[in-house]
């Protein structure tokens, strides 16, 4: 072996060792970041859970006062206490949304799958949103779906997807508008269910199609925006759809309304 080759072998070994050390270091950083991320998720979950209890107590006390159980209130007092109840309830909804997000974003989220009618789930969510829709004179309908096969999925999670999509449809649709849910089947063997949740509300600009599904993202993030929320609703919906091996997207035109679509496989093997 020539002198020159010996030198270059030694240089190569040295370089290889340096690269390996760097790779080990990078892996260590990744592991550390992962464990910190898990800790943060756990912290968020704990704190959200712990926030619920005192808030529930505040709401209950305020309801006791509002309902005159400790003596009749005058109108101004009642209005004020009603404000505490409503504000508390809104805060609680936001905490619940954060909890749902945290619980659905881990590496291992268990799905509790059963067979059920997806149209029935939509009707339940419609019923829950009926008074809100009625307040804004919004028609909220399911246009078809009575003859669909049963789906095999996590019922609570599918219900949550509809709650978020239908809730948004009502939130972003003006007085007298329309929101709907409809179904169709796709694929060679019609083995994919396509769900549409649409409205004729204010719509979303094309530039924002991706943004709306991002965590904590809100198209209007100004403090004076008319609609407050955690900015997690669609991120949760996307996460829950993906857990079921489906896809979710939006098609929309500003001022004309939005149509959210998601797919669910119908050929899931039953366990």
């Amino acid at each position, binding site marked *: 072996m020539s002198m020159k080759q010996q030198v270059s072998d030694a240089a190569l070994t040295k370089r290889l060792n340096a690269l390996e050390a760097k790779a080990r270091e990078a892996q260590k950083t990744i592991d550390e970041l992962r464990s910190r991320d898990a800790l943060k998720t756990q912290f968020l979950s704990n704190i959200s859970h712990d926030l619920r209890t005192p808030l*529930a107590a505040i709401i209950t*006390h305020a309801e006791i006062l509002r309902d005159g*159980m*400790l003596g009749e209130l005058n109108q101004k007092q009642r209005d004020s206490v009603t404000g505490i109840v409503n504000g508390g309830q809104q805060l609680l909804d936001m905490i619940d949304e954060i909890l749902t997000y945290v619980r659905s974003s881990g590496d291992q989220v268990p799905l509790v799958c059963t067979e059920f009618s997806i149209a029935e789930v939509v009707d339940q969510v419609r019923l829950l949103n009926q008074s809100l829709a009625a307040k804004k004179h919004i028609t909220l309908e399911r246009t078809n779906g009575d003859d669909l096969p049963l789906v095999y999925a996590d019922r*609570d999670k599918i219900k949550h997807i509809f709650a978020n999509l239908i809730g948004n449809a009502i939130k972003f649709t003006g007085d007298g508008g329309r929101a709907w849910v409809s179904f169709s089947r796709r694929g060679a063997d019609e083995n994919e269910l396509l769900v549409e949740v649409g409205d004729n509300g204010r719509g979303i600009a094309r530039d924002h199609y991706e943004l709306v599904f991002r965590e904590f993202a809100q198209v209007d993030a100004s403090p004076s925006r008319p609609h407050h929320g955690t900015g997690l609703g669609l991120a949760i919906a996307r996460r829950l759809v993906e857990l079921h091996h489906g896809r979710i997207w939006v098609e929309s035109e500003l001022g004309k309304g939005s149509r959210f679509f998601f797919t669910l496989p119908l050929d899931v093997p039953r366990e």
Partner: protein
Amino acid sequence: MASRILIVEDSPLITEAFSILFRESGYDVDVAGTVAQAVEAATTRPADLILLDISLPDGDGLDVLEQLRERNAFPRVALAMTGHGDSRSRQKCLDAGCADVLLKPVRIGDLLRQIEHLLA
């Protein structure tokens, strides 16, 4: 005689709010913050209705019902309360003998109507 309600809940903030609510509605009220306290209270001062938080510091709220059943002291009505409403934990409560499972925070109007109906 007024019906007796046993509130089983580990947060004093919640027990205090419910105590006011039920007393003002004409019920006798007992409180317990752990499984052990709840079993002790329900066997020495039998309650007509137990309002049961599912997670307690020394165990599962449903343990209370199991122990009371063993001692032949199961209440007329048991109502469970939980912080999250997934259908699996709901079914577990119903299987354990609860008349219903309420999602916290419970709207007081609904709660009082339901209790009145269950104890009628």
